[in-house]
């Protein structure tokens, strides 16, 4: 194994997740967030060596949507840049790799997109294999429902279990000022909500949401000056798997399991039970339970580690940003910025990002308040 550098999250700003901001374009939503993240770090734009973004043209409804963000990101004079057509958390991972290569010491990572301008069930249909799957008319909700069914069949989980999971997330979200769904509801009430797509009820999944996020990363030597309490990256890994819904066991996520093992091993942890909190990009209760299994944590229940103290993706799921928000939430927890949602004495956290249908690609960050490598 190569010698790794200590890299930390040192700043994070986020527009509150809302159903729809009719007055601002994506880049207008992004601008104040970029400024806020820089201000948190007490630096101007010149202090950032490298910039990267995560977004998707089809969310923007136009080609080259990301070009508009260049101005907002302060791309003058010209900056070292790449854009990933992925959840912005993957851009953060790539920025971390660049730091390991010695190509930069500081990085700005932004995520944006207004999925609310379109119909996600139709737009994200186009993410499926265009020859075999997309013509079936499936969208992310219907494929998630297939996965939820597969999970129920294997594990014996019930509608009541899903309701309990959603209720826990919503209760947590009530303490998170950035969450979209902030009204707690008892499991029994959620179980009365209509089917979104059976076996997923409307109360179990986040409505469409939009936001804009900016996260700042810095390597050891720079991070300490930019942040009073940086969240150091101890381990990270991401894996993809085949899309074909018939070629994989939808009740599990092989890619999430493998990536979690690798990230925990890099962090020097024996198990996910050694962390204080976990932030999951789980858009449905079934996804949460599958991801808990990937971490070898019990499928249900709360306690230590706390699962989704922010309310998770079930309380706000702005596509292409959901994963980066998880990383930002983990940073808030470790740096003392989580407010009412704070997990007491949080010293280690896990943040997860996913993209594609049915948890096709998964990324895990393991973070801690102490530096990992000496």
């Amino acid at each position, binding site marked *: 194994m*190569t010698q790794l550098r200590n890299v930390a999250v040192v700043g994070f700003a986020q527009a509150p997740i809302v159903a729809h901001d009719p007055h601002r374009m994506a880049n207008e939503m992004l601008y104040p967030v970029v400024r806020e993240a820089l201000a948190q770090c007490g630096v101007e734009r010149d202090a950032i060596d490298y910039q990267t973004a995560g977004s998707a*043209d*089809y969310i923007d409804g136009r*080609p*080259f949507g990301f*070009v508009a963000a260049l101005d907002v990101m302060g*791309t003058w004079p010209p900056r*070292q840049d790449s854009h990933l*057509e992925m959840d912005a958390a993957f851009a953060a991972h790539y920025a971390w790799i660049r730091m390991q290569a010695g190509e930069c010491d500081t990085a700005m990572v932004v995520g944006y997109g207004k999925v609310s301008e379109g119909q996600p069930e139709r737009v994200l249909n186009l993410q499926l294999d265009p020859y075999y799957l997309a013509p079936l008319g499936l969208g992310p909700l219907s494929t998630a429902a297939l996965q939820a069914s597969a999970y129920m069949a294997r594990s014996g989980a019930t509608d009541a279990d899903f309701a309990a999971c959603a209720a826990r997330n919503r209760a947590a979200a009530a303490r998170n000022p950035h969450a979209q769904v902030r009204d707690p509801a008892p499991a029994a009430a959620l179980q009365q909500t209509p089917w979104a797509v059976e076996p997923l009820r409307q109360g179990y999944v986040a409505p469409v949401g939009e936001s804009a996020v900016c996260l700042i990363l810095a390597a050891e030597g720079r991070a300490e000056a930019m942040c009073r309490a940086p969240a150091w990256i101890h381990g990270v890994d991401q894996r993809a798997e085949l899309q074909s819904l018939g*070629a994989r066991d939808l009740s599990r996520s092989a890619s999430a399991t493998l990536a979690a093992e690798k990230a925990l091993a890099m962090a020097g942890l024996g198990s996910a039970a050694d962390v204080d909190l976990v932030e999951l990009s789980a858009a449905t209760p079934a996804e949460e339970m599958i991801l808990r299994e990937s971490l070898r944590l019990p499928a249900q229940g709360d306690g230590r580690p706390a699962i989704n103290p922010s309310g998770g993706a079930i309380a706000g799921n702005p596509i292409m940003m959901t994963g980066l928000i998880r990383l930002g939430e983990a940073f808030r927890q470790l740096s003392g910025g989580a407010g009412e949602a704070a997990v007491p004495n949080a010293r280690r956290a896990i943040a997860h990002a996913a993209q594609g249908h049915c948890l096709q690609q998964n990324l895990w960050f393991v973070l801690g308040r102490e530096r990992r490598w000496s």
Partner: protein
Amino acid sequence: MKRPVAVVGVGQTKHSARRAEVNIAGLVREAVDRALLDAGLEHGDIDAVVIGKAPDMLEGVMQPEQFLIGAIGGHLKPVVRIHTAGSVGATTALAGVTHVASGLFDRVLVIAFEKQSEGNAMWALSPNMPFMPPLVAGAGGYFAPYVRAYIARSGAPAHIGPMTAANARANAGRNEYAHLTEPMTVEDVLESPVLWDPIRYLETCPSSDGAVAMVLASAEQAKKGPRTPAWVKGGASYAEAMWVPGRDQVNPLAGRTCAKHVYDQAGITDPWNQIDTAEIYVPFAWFEAMWLENLGFRPLGEGWKAVERGDVKMGAHLPINPSGGVLCTNPIGASGMLRLAEAALQVMGRAGAHQVEGAKTALGHAYGGGAQYFAMWVVGSEL
């Protein structure tokens, strides 16, 4: 870079207007299989995959890498998808370089593709910006004013673009993978219709179906391979904002900055004399003269003179685009990586009938957006 990175395998498809006999996955797989075969490796030997393509609207598939995971051998591997407009193929390869240089990955597969026959490039390249009148004129309509500005500034005569176009076609005739290979004269180009003043039909890149892949490796792994590798001497990708007052679209600062960064890494102080051949991104013929200046090969205002003297032809001082370049082959998302891959083939001495004799140092270059994104590498035959 923390440690040296080498190109150990290159594969590309035959490019044409319509590869009707393969679907998107089949097209991509063709390039991937050739790159792995070239490197003497199998999918199991690859630690990570980096894939790039231009706007998803070209094929109408959102994030197509998701359905291509099987075709690219990405199952249970880290997979990264890059999109930086026309420069994407080059940025993708450079992201692969970063992966290897980090020490975290020893062998990385990089892939770029476009199957433009699945859609309509003019539509897909006509962004509808909020609060702006839609141009709906594709990339040619967007770049024609920049070309006019270059001509006005430099006083270049009207035959420069046509000379570049005719030379590119002569080069493509020696490239077995090129899309457009029929020879044409400067007169043929001048007689072709004007599409976007002053850009003529025969000074315009085609829409191609095609893919390219490379295997990048650490020095230790590269030395095990069957090939003499191409060593990455320097590489970088830069972007600049769109709406900066005074931004120079004819000679963009991002391009100059990127070139300087790459030359500094590669120890190049005099690119005109230290680089043996260059594959540069020329989708419309006039950009060759423009980029000769932007890349520091020729002084400001004199790029066109090198074209006129024939300095950029095969066998001359600095052969530009020996493969025929983007003017003859343009699977847009792959076009940038093709430039980098062709540069690598040149310094490996494996460019076939379009080999530049004795090429030891080569530049591969791409640009994109509204001349805002730049990505390039310098490769060499020696570590």
